[in-house]
């Protein structure tokens, strides 16, 4: 079984919601859409207070190179545009829409029929991705069309589809593969056309055998798409690790996957691309697993963007003693500081943890056991980087490769002394990045 070479850990899987079909979450009475739901520059609102909008109408345009359009997930009236606190508590510009009915834009095809033939050209597909505001739904929310703007001197050899879903608890990718496998493969065909790659490889971790079997069966009609089972190991779904597992290529430090002729996209992104290219449907929903050990009614939801997080949590019931709620998986997700926030693109999970589970453990002195070095998939030395970052020695951090850290958290997960390794490495990475940028300017 193939996998990446160095490091990696095996967190408890806890994929409780594997057998729960995706349910459509009811439309709330008001949605709040942040203009910055993606990596890069926030979009600029193109609607005003009082405007009537339909489902799928453009409400904010991504004007910068790395930015993404935002569309109204509901029909109704724009109530206001003002700064609203996001899940981390920072005030961000948001468009508040009062919901009236459910009127869709005419151009969006809402029929359940699957359209297999791709009529659009390469440029049209990339432009559709851009217009429809598709971002990577694996978690980073990187605007997808940017990846397909391949520099003229580069050639794409492989399109890699990340269906590893190595984060514990999350099951949306798995459910999308099972329920929308056909659409995903058509989406991949469109992406192959857009990238010019001859072959697409879908990497699926071996704990999702149903999905592997299902996709292999479907892929008989698609000779360019191959399914590759992967050994279960975290962080298999990290871009560089997946590239290494599937193609045995190594992305040089500080470079993008295109450097080695690879584009990586998430499996749920392929479904969004299918909907955009074949059905003209912009990205207005997020697939979210609502889960937790103590949650009775664990669910996989399809949620309209801008839905209050509290609505979603209340629909399954917040268990007593819930101490921490995480947006995203337990390894890389961020704890929510402000529960009165709203669903955003790429919110793949809402995970509720109780006292015992969220407790990080008492911090002890470093034992010098070197386990963090063993598990680091990037071959770094967290044991060295953490004190350097703690003492603000940014130049030494840079020399020791802090910028290569993918923030997977394996080191901190493995540390027997519960040291806040990743916390300080993140701080170091942030400040070292600032230092490097200042030096360039």
């Amino acid at each position, binding site marked *: 079984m193939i996998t990446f070479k160095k490091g990696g850990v095996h967190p408890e899987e806890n994929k409780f919601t594997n057998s729960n079909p995706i349910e459509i979450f009811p439309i709330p009475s008001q949605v709040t859409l942040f203009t910055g739901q993606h990596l890069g520059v926030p979009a600029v609102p193109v609607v005003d207070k009082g405007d009537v909008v339909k489902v799928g109408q453009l409400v904010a345009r991504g004007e910068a190179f790395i930015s993404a359009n935002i569309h109204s997930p509901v029909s109704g009236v724009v109530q206001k545009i003002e700064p609203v*606190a996001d899940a*981390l*508590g*920072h*005030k961000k510009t948001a468009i508040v829409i009062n919901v009236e009915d459910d009127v869709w834009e005419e151009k969006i095809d809402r029929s359940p029929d699957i359209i297999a033939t791709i009529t659009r050209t390469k440029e049209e597909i990339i432009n559709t991705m851009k217009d429809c505001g598709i971002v990577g739904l694996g978690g980073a929310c990187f605007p997808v069309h940017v990846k397909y703007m391949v520099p003229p001197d580069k050639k794409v050899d492989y399109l890699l589809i990340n269906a590893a879903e190595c984060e514990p608890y999350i099951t949306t990718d798995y459910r999308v593969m099972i329920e929308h496998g056909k659409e995903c493969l058509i989406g991949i065909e469109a992406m192959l056309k857009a990238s010019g790659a001859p072959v697409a490889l879908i990497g699926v971790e071996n704990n999702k055998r149903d999905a592997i079997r299902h996709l292999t069966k479907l892929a008989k009609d698609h000779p360019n798409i191959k399914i590759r089972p992967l050994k279960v190991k975290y962080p298999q779904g990290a871009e560089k690790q997946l590239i290494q597992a599937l193609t045995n290529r190594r992305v040089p430090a500080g470079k993008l996957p295109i450097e080695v002729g690879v584009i990586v996209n998430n499996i749920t992104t392929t479904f969004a691309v299918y909907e955009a290219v074949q059905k003209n449907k912009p990205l207005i929903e997020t697939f979210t697993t609502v889960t937790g050990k103590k949650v009775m009614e664990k669910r996989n939801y399809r949620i309209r963007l801008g839905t209050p997080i509290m609505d979603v949590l209340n629909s399954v019931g917040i268990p007593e003693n819930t*101490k921490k709620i995480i947006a995203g998986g337990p390894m890389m997700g*961020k*704890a929510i*500081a*402000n529960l009165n926030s709203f669903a955003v693109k790429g919110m793949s999970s809402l995970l509720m943890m109780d006292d015992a589970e969220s407790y*990080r453990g008492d911090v002890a002195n470093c034992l010098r056991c070197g386990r963090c070095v063993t598990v680091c998939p990037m071959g770094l030395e967290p044991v060295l980087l953490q004190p350097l970052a*703690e003492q603000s020695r940014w130049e030494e951090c840079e020399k020791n490769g802090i910028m290569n850290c993918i923030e997977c958290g394996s080191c901190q997960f493995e540390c027997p002394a519960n040291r*806040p390794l990743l*916390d*300080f490495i*993140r*701080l170091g990475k*942030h*400040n070292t990045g600032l230092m490097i940028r200042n030096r360039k300017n």
Partner: protein
Amino acid sequence: MSISIILLAAAVLGAIAIIAAVILYFVSKAFRVIEDPRIDEVADLLPAANCGGCGFAGCRNFAEAIVKAGSMEGLNCPAGGESVVNAVAAVLGLEAVLGEPQIAVVRCQGSCEFAPAKSHYEGAPSCSFANSLFVGESACPNGCLGLGDCVRSCNFDAIYIDDMTKLPVIDNEKCVACGACVKACPRMLVELRNKGKKDRRIFVSCRNTEKGAAAKRNCSVACIGCGKCLKACAFEAITLKNNLAYIDSDKCKLCRKCVAECPTGAIVECNFPPKKEQRAAEEIVNEPANN
């Protein structure tokens, strides 16, 4: 072992030593570094704390700079204070230029009482890390995070975190206004202000630039940018920018009119005696301000 071997060894080593000494003598003549002897004298007078308060990397660099400059204008050793500056001036035969004595103040009163926590943080104990992660426990985007980056930055042991308020407190006696904590605070809450007559100071203890209602929601002692203090001030010492008032410590005459006027209590006076009517009523205990 015969005695001749010992004698031979001694003779050879002695010869090598003499040759090396001759070489070293000429090398030291040829490559002599001429250094102003006053630099050493000045460096000996400095406190050797290497705090960086003067703006140089260390005390030695400061000594070099001051000897080279030939004037004490703009060069000050805040850690050493008046006595050191006078001593250095005497050595160099210059006139001592003493700036207004300064002290660090923390411009936040968002204690657990005034700005109750809305979330709980248990990550690494570092303000700059917490600041990069989220808005802070009190949900005030400008408020003190209370994790003590300033405490760790202080070379003079002049800052500690109050157990009750979870805010940093600056020891007036120990603070030398070197400015290390000003640089350490990721939210720029520490400011160097004039020490003032009899150590009396008035300042706006808030950095929140949100609109009044939003600021008040998270903290009851926030500056809401109402501008009342602006009208009360007879000396034009107060300016209002981005919903936040600021008192210029050079212009402030310590009349305390703004303190009485502030509806939220964001303006703090410290080291003033209690007002007469208060003393008479004996109702309000004049708490020492957190600075």
